[in-house]
C-alpha cells in the first residue's frame, strides 16, 4: 500500500531572481548528475493538465542488490513546498517521514536539496532495514552484522526470507585513499546523516562483496560482484567462509585487500610501462591490461631486434620477462626468438628504476642474441 501524506511544513522563502522552473531543473540536474548513480528519473508527467511544467517523475532507486520504484511528487503550483513521494511497500516500511531532517530544511534555492533528501531517504531505508535484520537474528549472527556496520556503514543488510531468516549483506569495496579518483560526494552544510555517511567516501566503488549468512553461520555463501567494465583478469577470486573460524571483522578487510591488490597490480604495471615508454618509443602497448609492450631497437647500426616486454599479474613480485625477436634474420621465413628471464632485479624498486634497469641490460643482451642468431642462421644467409 502506498503512503502519500507527509507532515513537515514548507518553509516559505523569498522569491529569487531565477525562475521557478530553472530552480526545479537545477534540483533535478543535481540528482541526475550525481556520480554515484543511485537515482534514475523517467516518465515525467504533470500533476494536472494546467500545471506549468512536469512536476511528477517515476524514479528507480538502487538499494543494495535491488532496485526500488518510487514516484517523486513535486508541486508546480507550490514549488517551494518540499516534495512528496509514493513509495513501494518495502520502502514505505523503512522510511518514516518524521525522521527526515532534510525535509525540515528543504529549500528550493539550494540545488542539492532534492539529492540530500533522496540520499537521506536511502540511508534511512538502509539503516532501518539493517536494524530489522539484526532484530530477527540470533546472537551469533547479530554480532557479525553489527561488526559489519562498524566496518562499513554503507553496507546493505536485508532479511532474505522469513522462514530461514537468512541475511544478505552487500559490502562496497572502494579504491584505497591513495588512489582516490577525482569524482566523489561533495560536502554539503545541509547534509543529514545520509550525506554525512557518503561524505569523505567519494572514493570509487570498484566492486561489491556479497555474503549470504544463515543464522548459525554454517552455510555462508560469499561472492564478489564487479561492474561489467572490469575484465576477468582484474577480478579477484572470492575466498570462502570457514564455519567456526571466520568472522566479519577480519574477513571483510581481507577480501577488500585482495580486490584492491588485484586492481593496484594493474596500476603498477601501467606505471612500469609508462616509465619504459619514456625511455624507448614503443611499437605497441597493451592498453587494456598493461601486460605487454614491444620496442623496435637497432643496436650499433647493424642489428635490429624487437624486444617484447612481458609483465604478469604478479608484477612486481615476478620480474618482467624479455622476448627478443630477430627482424631480418629468418629461418623458413620465421623470426628467431630468445627469452630473457633473469637479470638484476628487485621487486622493491620503483617503476622508474625497473625501466632503467631493463634499458641498461638491453645492449649486452641484444649483442648475445645477435651472436646466437648468426650462428643459427649461418653467415651465408646474413644480409
Amino acid at each position, binding site marked *: 500500500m502506498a503512503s502519500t501524506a507527509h507532515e513537515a511544513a514548507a518553509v516559505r522563502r523569498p522569491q529569487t531572481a531565477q525562475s521557478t522552473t530553472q530552480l526545479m531543473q537545477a534540483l533535478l540536474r543535481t540528482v541526475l548528475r550525481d556520480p554515484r548513480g543511485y537515482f534514475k528519473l523517467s516518465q515525467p508527467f504533470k500533476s494536472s493538465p494546467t500545471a506549468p511544467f512536469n512536476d511528477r517523475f517515476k524514479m528507480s532507486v538502487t538499494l543494495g542488490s535491488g532496485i526500488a520504484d518510487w514516484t517523486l511528487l513535486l508541486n508546480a503550483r507550490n514549488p517551494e513546498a518540499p516534495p512528496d513521494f509514493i513509495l513501494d511497500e518495502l520502502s514505505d516500511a523503512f522510511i518514516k517521514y518524521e525522521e527526515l531532517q532534510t525535509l525540515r530544511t528543504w529549500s528550493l534555492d539550494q540545488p542539492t536539496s532534492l539529492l540530500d533528501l533522496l540520499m537521506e531517504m536511502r540511508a534511512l531505508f538502509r539503516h532501518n532495514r539493517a536494524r530489522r535484520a539484526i532484530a530477527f537474528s540470533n546472537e551469533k549472527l547479530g554480532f557479525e552484522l553489527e561488526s559489519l556496520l562498524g566496518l562499513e556503514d554503507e553496507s546493505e543488510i536485508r532479511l532474505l526470507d522469513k522462514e530461514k531468516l537468512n541475511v544478505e549483506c552487500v559490502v562496497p569495496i572502494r579504491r584505497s585513499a591513495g588512489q582516490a579518483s577525482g569524482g566523489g560526494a561533495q560536502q554539503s552544510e545541509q547534509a543529514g546523516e545520509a550525506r554525512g555517511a557518503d561524505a569523505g567516501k567519494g572514493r570509487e566503488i570498484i566492486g561489491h562483496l556479497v555474503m549470504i549468512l544463515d543464522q548459525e553461520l554454517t552455510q555462508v555463501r560469499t561472492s564478489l560482484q564487479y561492474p561489467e567494465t572490469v575484465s576477468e583478469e582484474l577480478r579477484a577470486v572470492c575466498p570462502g567462509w570457514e564455519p567456526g573460524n571466520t568472522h566479519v571483522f577480519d574477513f571483510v578487510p581481507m577480501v577488500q585487500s585482495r580486490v584492491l591488490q588485484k586492481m593496484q597490480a594493474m596500476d603498477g604495471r601501467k606505471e612500469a610501462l609508462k616509465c619504459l*615508454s619514456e*625511455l*624507448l*618509443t*614503443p*611499437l*605497441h*602497448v*597493451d*592498453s*587494456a591490461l598493461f*601486460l*605487454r609492450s*614491444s*620496442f*623496435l*631497437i*637497432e*643496436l*650499433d*647500426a647493424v642489428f*635490429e631486434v*624487437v624486444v*617484447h616486454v612481458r609483465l604478469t599479474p604478479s608484477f612486481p613480485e615476478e620480474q618482467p620477462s624479455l*622476448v627478443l*625477436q630477430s*627482424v*631480418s634474420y*629468418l629461418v623458413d*621465413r*620465421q*623470426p628467431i626468438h630468445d627469452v630473457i628471464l633473469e637479470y638484476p632485479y628487485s621487486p622493491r624498486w620503483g617503476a622508474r628504476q625497473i625501466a632503467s634497469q631493463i*634499458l641498461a641490460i*638491453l*645492449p*649486452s643482451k*641484444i*649483442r648475445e642474441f645477435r651472436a646466437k642468431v648468426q650462428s643459427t642462421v649461418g653467415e651465408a644467409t646474413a*644480409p
Partner: protein
Amino acid sequence: LRWTQVGPERIVFFIDLHNERPGQPNSELEVFKQCVNTIILTKGHMLSQAEYALCVLLEGAVLLSDFTLDTNELLKQVNSLEGTEAFQSLDMSSVFSTLLERKQTPLVKPPSQAPAAAPQGQIDPAAQKALLRGVFLYSRTNVVPSFGTDKSAFEALSTDADFVMDALFVHPPPSKQGAESKAQAVFDFLIDLDRSSSHDRAYCFESTANPRRVLRNAVQLAPHARQRPPQGDLLNVLTSSPASSPQMGAAVPGAGEGGGMGAIPVGRPIL
C-alpha cells in the same frame, strides 16, 4: 594516443605477384612473404585482436582468403604463392572495391563464441567499429597503378576515419632502373592514397629488395594503426657505449640504394 584502447583491427594484405624478370626467381615476392610472416608473427606477441584477409595483385586485386583468425592457414597460403609473369597494369578500383566489401563483412568470431548477432543483410556494428587496414605490397617499377573511371570505393574509404591504407614499395636500386622506370611516380601515387590533411595516418615505405631494410620497414606495420605515432618515430637506436642514451625515433639512414624513408610529406625523396 598509444595508451587508448584501440579495438579490433582487420588487415587485408595485397601481395603483388608481378615478376619483373619472368622465368627467373621472384625475389620481391619472396621478400613480401617474409614481410607478411613478420607482421603477423610480431602481432601475435602483442595480444592484438586482429583478423587477416589475403588478396593478390595481378591486373587487378583478387581475393584469395577472406578474414580469418587462423594465421597458420593464412601463412600457408601466403608462403605457397607464385609469381611468374609480368603485368602491364594495375586497376586500383578493384583494390578499393575489395576493401569496401570487406568492411561490410561481419567480424570473425573465435569458435568458443556465439556467431555474429547481426541479422542477415545488416552490417555487423562491431565490424563497423573495427579499423580496416590495407597493407599494399607492390613491386612494379614501370607500372603506375590507375583507377580507371570508377573511384567511388576509394572516395568512400578516403573519408572513413576507420580506414587506413599502408604501402610498401620494393624496387631495384636507381642505378639498375631502366630509362622507362616510373618508380618515383609509383611512390608519389602511393603516398597520395593517404588523403588525410597531413598525410600522416598511413605508413608508406619504399626500398630496394634488401631484406634487412624491407623487414625493418615491415615490422613497423605490425602495431595497431590507431596506436602508432607518425611514420619515422618507431625505431630506437642503441649503442654498446655505456655513455650513450637511446635515440628515440631516429630516422632510418638513407643509403645510396635510395631506400628507407622517414617522415614523408615534405621533400619527397627521389628514387
